[in-house]
């Protein structure tokens, strides 16, 4: 019988809550989250005996021993970490949440949003510059080869821009939701 299976990661910036609920559902069916897989694009689950668990995620760069002590003391067990930055914890149903006040919860998403924004900005700017130059210069003062290069460069920068800009927008949306609640 299969004891390990892999499931996709729908992008934690977009579906953090949904993914945590998914893990609870899997645990009920006897499949337990074990680690991130495929460079973070998936999760590895392992078969065990069915349990009622809740899952929570926190972003914390360079988390230290004390950080994990706090979780342990509050009944939250570390399940797995990604790049010592994203940490997923599990606890029995009824355990109090890991964030209990609004200011610190806001900070969770604010820091993540700012980080993604910092990554996305250079791609955003270069993408704009490439396409703007192309739009202005193509067919006029730019030689054909140069406008082709601009088009290719612009298209290439869209890819990292999507992977940083969309999470940025997702965190921004979540932050606003937390603030309004």
């Amino acid at each position, binding site marked *: 019988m299969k004891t390990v299976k892999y499931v996709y990661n729908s992008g934690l910036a977009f579906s953090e809550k949904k993914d945590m609920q998914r893990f609870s559902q899997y645990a009920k069916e006897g499949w337990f989250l074990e680690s991130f897989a495929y460079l973070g694009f998936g999760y590895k689950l392992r078969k065990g005996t069915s349990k009622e668990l809740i899952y929570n995620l926190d972003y914390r760069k360079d988390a230290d021993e004390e950080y994990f002590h706090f979780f342990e003391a509050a009944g939250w067990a570390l399940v797995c970490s990604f790049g010592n930055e994203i940490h997923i914890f599990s606890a029995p149903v009824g355990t109090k949440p890991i964030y*209990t006040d609004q200011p610190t919860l806001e900070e969770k998403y604010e820091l993540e949003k700012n980080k993604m924004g910092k990554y996305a900005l250079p791609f955003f700017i270069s993408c704009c510059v490439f396409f703007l130059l192309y739009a202005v210069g193509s067919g006029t003062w730019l030689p054909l080869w140069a406008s082709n290069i601009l088009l290719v460069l612009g298209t290439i920068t869209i890819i990292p821009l999507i992977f940083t800009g969309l999470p940025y927008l997702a965190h921004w949306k979540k932050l606003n939701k937390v603030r309004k609640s």
Partner: protein
Amino acid sequence: MPRADTLEMGELTDSAYYILLSLLEAKHGYSIMRSIEEMTSGTLSIGPASMYTTIKKLGKANLIKEIKTKDTQNKKTYVATESGISLLKKEIQRRRDMVRHAEEIFKTSKWSDAK
């Protein structure tokens, strides 16, 4: 736009208020959680992520400091600093004033309990 930091405004969030209060005497992280639960008869418990964030913040603002102890389990111990205590006192007065304002207004309103 980042929101104005309450600490910089000289105000304490509820979590920061209780953490500072429990650190009039030196404690390590877990004891802080426990002492807040005891202090509030279990009505307030601070989650580990909120606790860690707030402790780091209070430390950065020099309102609490880490003290070296011979703890074998390598747990960090904290205590409130003088500026922490003085901010806490200011905060207690602020909150006392807030309650007093409310009581005064209520007393003269039709919602008053006193008949």
